[in-house]
């Protein structure tokens, strides 16, 4: 489906060919789509959004392309459009989607924590993605997760890099006052690891880890949930058999060196930094627990999303644009160099390069290659939020009845992200939920309570 084709022309096919039937291969199709989206960008915004809405409506009315063509041939394009307009408020729908209009606030502040998860948010600054979408964004390095939370609540930051579970916790009022927050896009998927102190290099089986002291960056983090999951799968109760502390990532490396913790599940660059400094080794990448798990998010308050809609859209667009750029392997080296500067991550380039390219030293004398060590996929699947909620429930962070799907929809703005991806010429998924497996165990987002109940080790 060429996104901006006129659905009222019989010659055009909206149906499911290659996907559009006009190109030889899917690759060719994608390339054409991208040029088209770019060219359409030059055209008036309004007609562009109009096309997208009209297409959706026509496709809904005529699931079979043949019938649509027959209909159009019979009554003519303009009659069809007029007839359609009487039964469906096309204008209002395109307006709702486009919300065209001037950007309300051009000078923005976006906070970030200096870890590789924030790559799209950070690199959008030196590589010009914000300015490309008409914004003047200042990216501000911030000292910790609680500070990021407080500064976004205080409106010192317009939007911020957050751990994916944080906006959910904030919306529900877990660990702070309930303030409605929204996840516009996921920053990165995968990209974490369990790092152990070098002295434990012979204890590679988690069942031997009783009595270990671990660190995670924050209570409401994927790191915490993944580490707990991994330990519990090995029969270790994360609350009784080991200690899990909340420790800022740079201190994890220092504590590992000081023999104060035995390991951590933390964000990069600190896993690789521990290897670089010779204090630890990478036991397992988080992608080996759950390939494609979300980690950090681009978040803003509901208030910002609704009161400055055009600004929010431009910002989200820059972020998704940057995320797509970061996902391409051929850009990774340049990105590592751009974000290693003292103004951004302030880290050695070789450390960042190993993380982003996936060719890395594991701390045990081997060079490993995994180009998918960290990936960038902006789509905020509702089912990610549901999974996070099941783990919050599992470990007693939230109690009582939980409206899993409702909160997921409220916080993870999957539809908006999808629309934005389309505008940028990307192909978003058509659904907002999906099933996936964590450590081989399937998760069905439709049955969260059964999932929570299925675990042997839990606090709920």
């Amino acid at each position, binding site marked *: 489906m060429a996104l901006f084709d006129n659905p009222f022309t019989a010659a055009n096919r909206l149906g499911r060919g290659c996907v559009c039937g006009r190109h030889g291969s899917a690759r060719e199709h994608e390339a054409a789509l991208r040029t088209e989206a770019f060219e359409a960008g030059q055209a008036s915004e309004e007609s562009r959004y109009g096309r997208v809405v009209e297409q959706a409506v026509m496709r809904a009315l005529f699931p079979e392309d043949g019938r649509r063509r027959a209909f159009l041939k019979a009554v003519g394009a303009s009659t069809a459009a007029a007839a359609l307009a009487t039964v469906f408020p096309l204008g209002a729908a395109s307006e709702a989607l486009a919300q065209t209009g001037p950007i309300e606030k051009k000078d923005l502040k976006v906070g970030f924590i200096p870890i590789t998860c924030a790559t799209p948010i950070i690199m959008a600054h030196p590589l010009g993605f914000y300015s490309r979408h008409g914004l003047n964004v200042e990216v501000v*390095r911030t*000292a910790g997760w609680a500070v990021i939370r407080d500064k976004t609540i*205080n409106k010192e930051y317009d939007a911020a890099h957050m751990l994916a579970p944080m906006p959910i916790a904030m919306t529900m009022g877990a660990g702070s006052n309930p303030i409605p927050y929204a996840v516009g896009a996921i920053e990165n998927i995968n990209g974490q690891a369990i790092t152990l102190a070098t002295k434990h290099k012979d204890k590679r089986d988690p069942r031997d880890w009783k009595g270990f002291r671990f660190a995670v960056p924050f209570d409401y983090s994927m790191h915490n949930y993944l580490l707990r999951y991994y330990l519990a799968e090995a029969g270790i109760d994360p609350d009784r058999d080991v200690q899990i502390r909340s420790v800022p990532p740079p201190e994890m490396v220092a504590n590992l060196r000081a023999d104060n913790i035995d390991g951590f599940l933390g964000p990069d660059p600190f896993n690789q930094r521990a290897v670089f400094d010779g204090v630890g080794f990478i036991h397992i990448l988080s992608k080996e627990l759950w390939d494609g798990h979300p980690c950090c998010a681009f978040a803003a308050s509901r208030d910002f999303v609704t009161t400055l809609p055009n600004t929010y859209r431009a910002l989200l667009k820059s972020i998704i644009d940057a995320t797509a750029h970061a996902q391409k392997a051929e850009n990774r080296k340049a990105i590592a160099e751009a974000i290693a500067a003292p103004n951004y991550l302030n880290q050695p380039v070789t450390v960042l390069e190993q993380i982003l390219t996936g*060719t890395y*030293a594991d701390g045990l*004398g081997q*060079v490993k290659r995994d180009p998918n060590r960290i990936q960038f996929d902006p789509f905020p699947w509702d089912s990610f939020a549901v999974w996070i909620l099941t783990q919050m429930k599992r470990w007693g962070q939230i109690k009582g009845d939980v409206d899993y799907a409702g909160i997921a929809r409220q916080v993870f703005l999957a539809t908006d992200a999808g629309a934005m991806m389309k505008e940028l010429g990307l192909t978003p998924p058509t659904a907002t939920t999906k099933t996936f497996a964590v450590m081989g165990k399937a998760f069905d987002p439709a049955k969260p309570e059964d999932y929570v109940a299925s675990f042997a080790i839990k606090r709920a």
Partner: protein
Amino acid sequence: MPRSVGLRAFVLSVLIFAVFLLAWHVAVRGGGAGAATVDPEYAKLVGAAAATGGQTPMPGPIDVGRTIWKHLSDPFYVRGTNDMGIGIQLAYSLARVLTGFGLAVVVAVPLGFLIGMSQLVYRALDPFIQVMKPISPLAWMPLALYTIKDSSLSSIFVIFICSLWPMLINTAFGVASVRKDWLNVARTLEVGPFRKAFTVILPAAAPTILTGMRISVGIAWLVIVAAEMLVGGTGIGYFVWNQWNNLSLTDIITAILLIGLVGMALDQVLARLTRFVTYPE
């Protein structure tokens, strides 16, 4: 004789410093000399020490000296929001300290006067002062961030609240312990209350008040580093946090040294002022 003591003390100081540097240099040279050589591709990906199976050692005095020189030779650059020279960071911290401290002076000295001159006020305020005084300044930080909703104002507030108490208590003490004879003389001469406060009590209590200020400024300088590490953004405390994030010990040591020197300078300024207002009896 005193001159020669001074000279000898100086020589001894230099000697101690030299011994310290030498010991430091020798102590950090030992580590990281493992013989295990690894695959050169692997070695390229890790730090020099890790490549031979060791840990990155504590930096030696030469590395630190090089870093200090690097920072001091270009202290005032600004390369974006998150990368500014150490001189600019120090200036931010100093500005915060002086603002908070100035506000505290404005509140503490008049209030201290009141407390010192009136038994009633003293008795009434004493419980509050006793409870507020021992609260760690950083404990105020979350509350300040929540209520003031501005991080730079919050750090100024924290400086204010922690500089307040020593000044308040010292001012009250100084005012209360002005010699009774002098107050009696003032009374027989029928001096008005304002004139009494400015011409009799203030000069008499000035050395004590300034001692309180000297303690306060010392505490304020201690606190700003911690506050900025917590809140981030700018300042020397943030610089330390940022280099900590980079796990760069040489930069941290540089910052520690500069924090010490600036703190000493602040203390010396107030010590001079104290000497200036002290009168011989």
